Every structure is written in structure tokens, then in C-alpha cells.
């Protein structure tokens, strides 16, 4: 990742996209969220959603995959250019997670990140806190998902 000092509010990255198949929606839901509208097409049709749709936690997990993959690629590109890569710490959590619209079987969701806040940390010298809004839109451009994540990012050594 970039060093804290090289990041600014508004920095936006396209993370990747994913098409949710009925098979994977049902597989995730049967393990972690077996509500009928996530595991059975006929029952989903009768529900207020109107068709089979992904567990919100499935959408969240797929978004995480795009974050991990795009960050690995970003870091590999930095290394290939001979740039020094900053370490990142574990995330203490998230806020403002919103499931704005259902993600239906066959939908393709594109995920992006945008840095919304930066501050130094007093508790961990040498690190800064970066707050990022992650969001996903479907193939029609409609927002379906977002959350604000926080991560510790290393500063350039003085």
C-alpha cells in the first residue's frame, strides 16, 4: 500500500467486479444465512424481494475479496516500479454498512473505494488512520452496498 503521507482524501480506486450466480448465492446462504429468499427460487418469488437474492453478508464477503485482490495487485505494481511498500495494520471494524438494494442472481456488482478521512494516531506513533468508503453498484449503475472501513497505514520514517 501507499504510505500514509502519500495518500489523500478523495483517492479513488476501482476494485473489480463480480457476477453473483444463483448457485453461489445458495451455497453461501445455506452455510451462513439460510433464509428462504436466499436459498430457494420459488420461495424468493413469493417474498417481498420477488426473486432469489444474495445474503447481505455474501455481498460484504465478495467486496472484501475485491479489496484483497486489488490491493495485492496495487502492491505488486508498486514493487515492480521499485517503490517501497507501506505496511497496513488490522482493521478495528467498520461503520455505516448499508444494503441499499437487493443483489439478485445474475447481477454484476462493481466495487470502488474512496478515502474519506485521514488522521495521525497518538496511540501508535509511526502509523496513521485512513477511513475509506467502499461501495458497490449493479450493472444498471444503481448503488447496492457500501460501508466505511478503517485501517492503520504506516508513515514514512522521519
Amino acid at each position: 500500500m501507499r504510505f500514509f503521507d502519500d495518500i489523500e482524501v478523495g483517492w479513488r480506486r476501482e476494485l473489480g467486479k463480480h457476477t453473483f450466480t444463483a448457485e453461489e448465492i445458495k451455497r453461501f446462504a445455506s452455510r451462513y444465512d439460510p433464509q428462504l429468499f436466499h436459498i430457494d427460487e420459488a420461495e424468493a418469488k413469493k417474498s417481498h424481494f420477488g426473486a432469489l437474492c444474495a445474503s447481505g453478508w455474501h455481498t460484504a464477503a465478495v467486496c472484501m475479496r475485491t479489496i484483497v485482490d486489488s490491493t495485492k495487485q496495487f502492491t505488486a505494481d508498486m514493487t515492480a516500479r521499485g517503490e517501497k511498500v507501506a505496511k497496513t495494520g488490522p482493521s478495528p471494524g467498520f461503520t455505516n454498512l448499508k444494503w441499499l438494494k437487493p443483489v439478485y442472481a445474475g447481477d454484476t456488482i462493481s466495487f470502488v473505494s474512496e478515502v474519506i478521512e485521514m488522521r495521525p494516531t497518538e496511540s501508535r506513533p509511526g502509523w496513521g488512520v485512513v477511513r475509506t468508503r467502499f461501495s458497490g453498484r449493479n450493472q444498471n449503475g444503481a448503488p447496492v452496498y457500501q460501508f466505511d472501513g478503517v485501517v492503520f497505514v504506516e508513515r514514512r520514517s522521519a
Partner: protein
Amino acid sequence: MSIVHYEDFVVGEVREMGPRTVTREEIVAFAAEFDPQPMHLDENAAKQTILGGLAASGWHTCSIMMRLLCDGLILNSTSQGSPGIDEAKWKRPVRPGDTLTVRHTILEKRESKSRPGVGLVRQECNVLNQRGESVMEMRFTAMFGKRNP
């Protein structure tokens, strides 16, 4: 057991859900599909990280919480889903072999203005390990159908 409707929730009420033991295989399988970082995939690589050993993805902990909530409440209710999560805190790593329970508290409830047959219930989940330590805390709202719309 009768189906839980919006009217049945009492502010301050606490439910216990679970337990569920989290296996190494499950931690690695979830991470391989959704969060392939070294601290979730491989013991030796995980030792080098700040987590100090293999630990579940935070999103895996969220998903396990959801399953405990499904089995302990949602599947026997008029749940109509959730608009989102206000806040979640990952407080401690979840390790292979940890046994998790959910302490679930009703924080507030109100009727939906836009949907007459539905009420909104604000809830807190505290996910605890076998030592009673909190590994994750979460506050969120979900919609439940009314018995008498």
C-alpha cells in the same frame, strides 16, 4: 414455538444464541474464497503478522454471527431483512477451535412510517468466545412483519 413478530420484541430483552465451534478448515476455506490474506490462511505466515497466529476473517465472524442469529431467532420470525449495520467492532481474533455464542439485546423498536405492516427493531449483538471475552460487537436495525398490521 410461535413465530416471533414485531409486537413480541421487548426493549432490553436479552437472548443467548449458539454455541458454535469454529474449525481451522472453516477459517481457511472462508478466507480462501473471500479474504485470502496470510493471517487467515496459513499458521506460519500468520505468526509473522500482528495477529500472532491464524485467525478468522472479520467478515467470517460476521457471517457466523448471522448463522447463529438465523438459528436462534430469524428463521422463526417475520424478519424482512436489514437496511444495514450502524457499527461493528472486531475486538479480538477468533482462533481455530474457539466456541462462539451471541448475546443479543433489543435496543429500541419503532413502527415504519413508509410500510404500515412492518416495524424496525434496533439490536446489539455481542459475540463471545469460550472464555467469555468479546470478539465482536455490532449494532444494527432489522425489519419485522407485524402480527396485527
